[in-house]
């Protein structure tokens, strides 16, 4: 039942978005079940936020210092103040919300479709040896091509606009989520499956009752990796196949050497990703996998 760890590592290391980029108040690999509410006191939260923000603040300081010393022209690299000013302009002109809205909407639609299709598919693959034997070569073949490589085909199929971008987001996320859901199901101890079956669980109910929750630690990893892929696919697709969105803003600014707008757009994309991780994935993990004591050793 165990799968070679190399496969998992291959997907995981291929994705820089895997896992928590910073130890949010909790050093990696030491996720011990703790007393309820232990990490929710205001003091603990402040410490956690501090740990999270310090590296980012340091980055800004280094940026300020390097640009001050080197003093490059604005068309090469902007100073922190320039980027803040560009953000202010984008805010007041309303561009920020147009682009942000377009990107978030596409991301949300693509992600919902990806999760709705990839989770059942991955769980079906994990629970059937025949299915996974058949689809595994196709999956592995597709992983390298997922997302960006499909942009030319997507524009041919859907033209320039929302549908092509949503297709790319879906495509970029689909394989990572499928693969990790499949691994997650395979890691469920056979005794749990047997216990459920010997208590009269039908095949259909196994999905919600056992397979999905049992695979959740790995599914959360898949969501992290997949959402990371999705964001990258989104930005790339918007550069090529769209006339709105953060990727488009990035690309337009490049035409006019507006490095301040370019960096501002990049900052927005990065911050959105962090917010999504902190506000959606981390709470999901906390309420399920961690609450249930299912955290994987060394993850």
């Amino acid at each position, binding site marked *: 039942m165990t799968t070679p760890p190399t496969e998992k590592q291959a997907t995981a290391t291929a994705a820089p978005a895997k896992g928590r980029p910073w130890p949010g108040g909790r050093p990696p690999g030491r996720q011990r079940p703790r007393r309820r509410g232990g990490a929710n006191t205001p003091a603990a939260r402040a410490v956690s936020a501090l740990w999270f923000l310090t590296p980012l603040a340091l980055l800004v300081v280094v940026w300020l210092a390097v640009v001050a010393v080197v003093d490059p022209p604005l068309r090469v690299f902007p100073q922190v103040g320039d980027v803040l000013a560009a953000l202010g302009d984008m805010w007041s002109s309303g561009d920020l919300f147009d682009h942000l809205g377009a990107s978030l909407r596409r991301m949300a639609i693509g992600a919902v479709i990806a999760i709705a299709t990839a989770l059942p598919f991955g769980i079906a693959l994990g629970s059937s040896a025949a299915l996974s034997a058949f689809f595994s070569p196709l999956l592995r073949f597709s992983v390298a091509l997922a997302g960006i490589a499909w942009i030319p085909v997507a524009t041919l199929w859907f033209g320039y606009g929302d549908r092509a971008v949503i297709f790319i987001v879906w495509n970029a996320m689909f394989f990572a989520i499928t693969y990790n859901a499949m691994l997650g199901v395979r890691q469920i101890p056979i*005794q749990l499956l047997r216990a459920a079956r010997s208590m009269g669980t039908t095949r259909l109910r196994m999905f919600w009752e056992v397979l999905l929750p049992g695979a959740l630690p790995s599914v959360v990893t898949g969501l992290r990796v997949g959402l990371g892929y999705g964001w990258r696919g989104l930005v790339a697709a918007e550069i090529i196949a769209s006339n709105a969105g953060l990727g488009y803003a990035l690309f337009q600014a490049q035409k006019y050497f507006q490095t301040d707008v370019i960096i501002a757009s990049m900052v927005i994309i990065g911050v959105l990703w962090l917010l999504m991780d902190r506000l959606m994935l981390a709470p999901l993990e906390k309420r399920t996998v961690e609450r249930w004591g299912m955290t994987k050793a060394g993850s």
Partner: protein
Amino acid sequence: MTALEITGLHKNYVDSYSGEEVTAIGDVSFSVDEGEFVSVLGPSGCGKTTVLNIVAGFVNLTEGSVVVDGREVGGPGPDRGVVFQSHALFPWKTVLGNVVFGLRMKGVPRAERDAKGKEFLELVGLGGFEHKYPHELSGGMQQRLGVARVLANEPAVMLMDEPFASIDAQTRRKLQEDLTRIFEKRHPTVFFVTHDVDEAVFLSDRVVVLSQRPSRVREIVTVDLPRPREWRTAVELPEFRAIANRVNELLVDDEAAQDDGTDDGSGGGNDGDGAAVAGV
């Protein structure tokens, strides 16, 4: 009335590494009456867990028949509840969620199943822990929850696969007494697999002693010790020692016979533990 009837059970499987055909179970027949506690005991690797897995419906038999409550067994079903050595609790369900799982699968209405779940939690001494998660319980409590989860389902027979083997010695004694108390109170039908002679004798009405692989029934020993039983008094009963010694002799005899038989061969007769469980 007979709750479980095993007749001429025979199991072959093909070893997935060597490709050889292995006989795990030669010929096993015995029955368990309703409300009876029967232990299956044998040297390690004798295939006793395979017998349990066949009764549970997890593993197919090669020949023979297994009848539970008058029906031939084919695949797992709620008439046979299993208590696993690894507990096999659902980590994503609360203690109460685990206990009522089987009732929920049967479609028992919420109020009814929660009341029943709480009743069985009280029975195993887990009252007040309803809203904890399994990982917050000690090993002993987890296994009591495993027992409650099966009993709440009211199966025709409760199958227990070395349930206390991974629990420390002190707690194990306590759990054995708890199980005996529960058995004496509710009289479920129990099929209990173990390699611990004292445990088998202490708990059981009868002990089925299996031989080395390919296993067959060496002898069925009746344990007519008075109930209620507790360790403190049981160990002082001469009958208890006599029965335990008898069972031990059967096991030792068998090992000696097996050693003689394989001395001139490859000598691999005793390390079949992994192979016999491989089909599980």
